[in-house]
């Protein structure tokens, strides 16, 4: 059929933007402002706040790392024409179904000061990356990376090349074309990938357990702390926070996904 005249989407776009902004605001409010304000009113906040803020710090750092590397590698996979592109994407996607203990095992092998690579890294950088917050961040970043990668690659590959060519004829260098034309056009799909990556980073358990060691106060994130609190009263508070975060994440992904189609 020839293309039917489409219903004007202007109102829907505004509505969508409003809903997405509301969801994001609710998420942040819950994360920071509301938490501070309601600290007195949420039972056992002093016990929950430790793991909670640790999880937030870990997830924020992790999503920044995973987001930047994911978008960068997604861009290279989308634009590059070298053989083995799909194999690289498969390797990058491994953390989606690789058991978290396998991820943790290999991370330990690579980062532990006792091993060759890990020892080298520790000597060179002066940092230890296991059994502290860095281990948690790396584990969470690894969990989030494949979602950022895949979403970025598919969104960037979907950008109309004619628009990029037009930008080049206007004299813009390649890096500016990427930053000012390609990436903005690919923002919806990429944002969906980042959102779900965020959710995975927050919820990472197995690898964090192995590389972080579940040390109270230092590497006990929310997903670890909740195990300890099974029989204690602060369990309900933690559960509420975690479930709400998950709902927000999946709603965000759903909204972003629908607006693409």
């Amino acid at each position, binding site marked *: *059929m*020839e*293309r*039917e*005249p*489409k*219903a*004007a989407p202007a109102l829907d776009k505004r509505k969508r933007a409003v809903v997405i902004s509301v969801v994001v605001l609710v998420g942040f409010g819950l994360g920071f402002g509301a938490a501070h304000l309601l600290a007195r009113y949420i039972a056992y906040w002093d016990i929950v706040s430790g793991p909670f803020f640790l999880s937030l710090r870990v997830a924020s750092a992790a999503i920044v790392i995973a987001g930047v590397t994911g978008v960068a590698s997604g861009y290279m996979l989308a634009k590059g024409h070298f053989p083995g592109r799909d194999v690289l994407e498969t390797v990058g996607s491994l953390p989606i179904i690789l058991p978290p203990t396998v991820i943790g095992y290999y991370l330990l092998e690579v980062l532990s000061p006792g091993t060759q690579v890990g020892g080298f890294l520790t000597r060179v950088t002066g940092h230890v990356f296991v059994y502290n917050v860095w281990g948690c961040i790396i584990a969470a970043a690894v969990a989030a990376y494949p979602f950022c990668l895949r979403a970025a690659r598919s969104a960037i590959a979907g950008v109309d090349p004619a628009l990029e060519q037009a930008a080049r004829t206007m004299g813009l260098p390649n890096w500016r074309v990427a930053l000012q034309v390609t990436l903005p056009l690919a923002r919806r799909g990429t944002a969906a990938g980042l959102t779900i990556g965020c959710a995975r980073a927050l919820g990472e358990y197995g690898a964090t357990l192995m590389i972080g060691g579940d040390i109270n106060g230092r590497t006990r994130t929310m997903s670890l702390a909740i195990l300890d609190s099974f029989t204690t009263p602060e369990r309900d508070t933690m559960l509420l926070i975690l479930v709400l975060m998950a709902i927000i994440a999946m709603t965000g992904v759903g909204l972003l996904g629908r607006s693409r189609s």
Partner: protein
Amino acid sequence: MTAALELAVARQIGEFNLDVAFTVESGMSVLFGPSGAGKSLTLALIAGLIRPDSGTITINGHVVTDCSRRTYVSTQKRRVGMVFQDGLLLPHRSVIDNVALAVRQTRGRRARRAVARSWLERVGAEGLADRRPGSLSGGQRQRVALARGLAGDPALILLDEPLSALDAEVRRELRELIRGVIISSSVPAVLVTHDAEEAEELGDVIIGYNHGRVTGARVVDRPVCPGPASGAPESTGRA
């Protein structure tokens, strides 16, 4: 004689408004106009794939759509054949299985395949019976699509820009085929195109379309009319 198609409908989609009325007595009527004029929308309404906001559609004397009485006959029961611009043959089935799927007046797999085979012969595609649609050229695909559209013994056949995606040469070849097969099978047809030459060659009646309205209609002069004579259509807008 009952008209093959009587149509008077209106439909709003976003900012586009369609409001048309015409009659097809028999033979091939062409809806001719620029892209976006509402021609394909009209076909979708005739087939029952979309419901109009108001109006009636009658095929062969049977009322298939009547908004005031809330009558809507489902697409499956309307017995209209359809030919799309890109064929839309099922890629996972062979050519003959694709055409056989449309045969409904016969029971039994073998009988259906026999009917399908005879239609493939009529469109000049009998050698393609066991091939997959993916291996066909554009022209071959549209031949099969035509066979599929006619194989179900429809009361009316609708063709939506069937040749627009093809090269000029192939298009010329298939024009003759389309007109020949459809006229000789005595199935009334409504064909949509934006190509003036095509409209002149194929149509007994050309109905002009623009911005969702019928702009006029005229009968095409044919020196030798191989098919049934077409009556002058009504082409009034809605009062």
